């Protein structure tokens, strides 16, 4: 522990990142450039999220890390251990007890409060990137609010699939101004982005930080005749019976057997402990 400064990064770096975060909060949805550092993990494993978390953590914080909703996957476990080692902060798997939650590809099912900060890992922060490869041009489009192109993508979806087939990283407009990539969360989570907690987004390789302050208007883009729909698998959870949570599909054998389970492991466990039982669930010990 004594070999590292608190939370790995040096204090000047954390100040720099905090300035970017504050600017991001002041201009919701705007991508603030920051001098992203080399982190002891490869790009694509959450280097942006880790730097934002490091800048946000204090000694009194309790950290929770999830990857696709789960606390026990590689990415989540290693980042949690990283901060246990370098910051010595308390960690938890319970959403309610955490004050800082770093996430990859999900928003927890339990409603977040004003006391909490949600940190997203972002691979590609620019929602217009796949339509317009030039950075100079996308910046100009943001500056001038020229977002027609975003709808061209949705148009293509409908013309090819008969419905808006974009299922994750579904573009949103923040507070009526900036179009933002909500990171690759399922579009099921989009409506939850109007929340009480602070949402921070870090993209390490792309060197961008952006933010959504509490209670900010976040609207998913759509067409009048093809409105936005938050979709999930049409099943209850096979372990806890929840019908309102986002589900993972698990293939059980090669005879076509499968089960659907909550992607949020904490939510699922809490429900089972409270006595809820799904089709294939066993009573929690």
């Amino acid at each position: 522990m004594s070999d590292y400064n608190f939370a790995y990064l040096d204090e000047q770096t954390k100040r720099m990142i905090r300035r970017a975060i504050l600017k991001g909060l002041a201009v919701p949805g705007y991508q603030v450039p920051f001098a992203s550092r080399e982190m002891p993990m490869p790009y694509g494993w959450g280097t942006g999220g880790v730097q934002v978390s490091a800048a946000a953590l204090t000694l009194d914080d309790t950290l929770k890390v999830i990857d696709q909703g789960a606390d026990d996957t590689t990415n989540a476990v290693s980042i949690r251990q990283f901060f246990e080692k370098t910051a010595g902060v308390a960690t938890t798997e319970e959403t309610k007890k955490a004050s800082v939650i770093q996430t990859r590809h999900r928003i927890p099912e339990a409603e977040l409060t004003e006391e909490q900060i949600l940190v997203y890992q972002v691979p590609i922060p620019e929602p217009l990137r796949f339509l317009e490869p030039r950075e100079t041009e996308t910046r100009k489009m943001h500056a001038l609010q020229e977002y027609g192109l975003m709808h061209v993508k949705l148009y293509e979806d409908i013309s090819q699939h008969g419905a808006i087939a974009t299922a994750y990283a579904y573009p949103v407009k923040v507070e009526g101004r900036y179009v933002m990539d909500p990171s690759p969360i399922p579009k099921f989570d989009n409506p939850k982005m109007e929340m009480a907690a602070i949402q921070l987004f870090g993209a390490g390789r792309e060197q961008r930080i952006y933010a959504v302050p509490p209670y900010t208007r976040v609207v998913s883009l759509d067409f009048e005749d093809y409105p936005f729909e938050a979709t999930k698998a049409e099943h209850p959870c096979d372990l806890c019976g929840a019908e309102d949570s986002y589900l993972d599909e698990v293939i059980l054998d090669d005879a076509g057997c499968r089960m659907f389970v909550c992607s949020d492991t904490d939510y699922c466990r809490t429900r089972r402990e409270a006595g809820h039982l799904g089709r294939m669930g066993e009573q929690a010990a």
Partner: protein
Amino acid sequence: MTRDDGKPAVPLLQVKNVAKHYGARVGCTDVSFDLYPGEVMGIVGESGSGKSTLLNSLAGHQPPDRGEVIFDTRADGPVDTVTMSEPERRMLSRTDWAFVHQHARDGLRMSVSAGGNIGERLMAVGNRHYGSIRERAVDWLGRVEISENRIDDRPLAFSGGMQQRLQIARNLVTGPRLVFMDEPTGGLDVSVQARLLDLLRGLVREMGLSAIIVTHDLAVVRLLADRLMVMKDGRVVETGLTDQVLDDPQHSYTQLLVSSVLQV
């Protein structure tokens, strides 16, 4: 010129002393002309004579060093587009203006379907109804003689002539009043050229478009242009009605240009 109600007509576009230099070299200089609603102006000249430089300066793709380009906007009347703010100019270039590139690839999104290409300008000005965008796209495909069942194909799967027609549809869908065309028939074989010219002539007359067409093909201007401007070394050497300039060229360069055309 007078309008139907007897008042003097306002030029749609007034170009005053436009100049563009590349360092010490002259791109184009001292260009002035008026373009009235419904009029088609042809600009001819050999390669390197400053035609495309002029067109790009007029269309706002590169700022001219000197001069004014005054456009008669729908909302505020005549406004200098060189000094207007960039958002306004970009808005203009996707509503009242259109630009047809020589290479369709420069003007199309090659990875987006034909329907998406046509719909882009509609969505850019705020149309958010899929059904109506689709309807307009189908209508415009018909107008440029592309079969409706190609609407979900990408332009990559189209022939050169079809790509060019698609580019035209994509540009005209918002009902622009002024179209800039840079060698619209370049690189197409002659029979395809003829059909494209026919189509363009029909659209220009039917929609009452004003257009500025840059080309080195005298046949194109003979068919499409009301007036002609001949450029050499960045300067305008002769202007006049198309037939007048082509049938009775005064300047030595124009005479050379006209006599260079092979008579079949």
